[in-house]
């Protein structure tokens, strides 16, 4: 009998190149990945007014009219202001610590109306909105710190504390129809 001699090849798959393959894939995903968190200024638009519907009445003292023209000049209740002063002025208007009869009755009744022109660059509009958001953020932070000892950002979303602070400063911002001139 002839015994055939066979060289038995090992039945294993050669795994040494696995690391290389994995590295290649890894590099591909490293290059294509974008871990970008979307950030931005959140806003809730009002429902459109019906044709025959009158706008709800608002007391003059509770409304802060902010006008921004296309060059970035600011009028707040017909007084010219620098963009950098807007935040302080707004905080004063919303909070009204001295109970000035010309400023808002209470923070939750204050309404900030931002009006601009059609030609205004988006950058200027967002800068303005940023200031308004900043005023509210600082007020909410201050209230949260004095009541709970933590900044507003540290409060859990929809927790009772969060709700209370947002009820105190409800952030009523109205974006008015742009004027042409």
């Amino acid at each position, binding site marked *: 009998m002839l015994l055939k001699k066979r060289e038995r090849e090992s039945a294993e798959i050669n*795994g040494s190149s*696995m*690391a290389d393959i*994995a*590295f290649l*894939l*890894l590099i591909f*995903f*490293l290059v*294509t*990945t*974008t*871990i*970008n*968190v*979307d*950030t*931005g*200024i*959140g*806003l*809730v*638009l*009002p*429902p*459109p007014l019906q044709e025959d519907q009158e706008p709800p009445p608002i007391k003059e003292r509770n409304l802060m009219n902010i006008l921004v023209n296309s060059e970035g000049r600011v009028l707040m209740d017909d007084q010219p202001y620098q963009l950098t002063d807007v935040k302080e002025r707004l905080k004063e208007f919303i909070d009204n610590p001295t109970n000035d009869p010309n400023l808002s009755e209470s923070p939750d009744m204050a309404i900030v109306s931002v009006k*601009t*022109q*059609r*030609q*205004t*660059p*988006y*950058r200027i*509009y*967002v*800068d303005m*909105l*940023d200031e308004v*958001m*900043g005023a509210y*953020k600082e007020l909410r932070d201050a209230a949260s710190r004095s009541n709970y000892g933590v900044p507003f950002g540290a409060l859990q979303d929809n927790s009772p504390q969060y709700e209370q602070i947002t009820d105190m400063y409800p952030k009523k911002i109205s*974006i008015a*129809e*742009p004027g042409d001139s």
Partner: protein
Amino acid sequence: MAHFKKKRGGSKQEVPTSAMPDVVFMLLFFFMVTTVLREVTLKVRVNLTQAENIEKIEQKRLLSYVYIGPERLPGNQLGEDKVQIDDAIVDDIGAIRNLMYDKLREQPKLIVSLRVDESSEFGLLTDVQEELKKASAFRINYSTRREP
């Protein structure tokens, strides 16, 4: 002179590499899961503006993007301001209402993320916003970068 011979450990000086594929695979899976391939090709230029008081959007599923900016023309030129939704430029502003209405039916908690070029004029944006109001897509977000 007395020689002190340093005693050396008898172990080999190599780092064991047998676990490397596992480590690499783990990294690979991490990046595979977190990666988001760009799903739309932008037909308009969008240079986002910067702002300070911004919030993060955690739930990306809720987002729907509207791009507004100067149209990209062949030869590195820029045209007029246009609105892009998904993959196409929307010339008729009135069509946005139906588009958004359909999106809202699929995702009732829709947040419309407005990615607007910093130099675009407010007029077009407000027209889009009016359409969003009519489509009852009230939650919007002005996409901005964080101020450094």
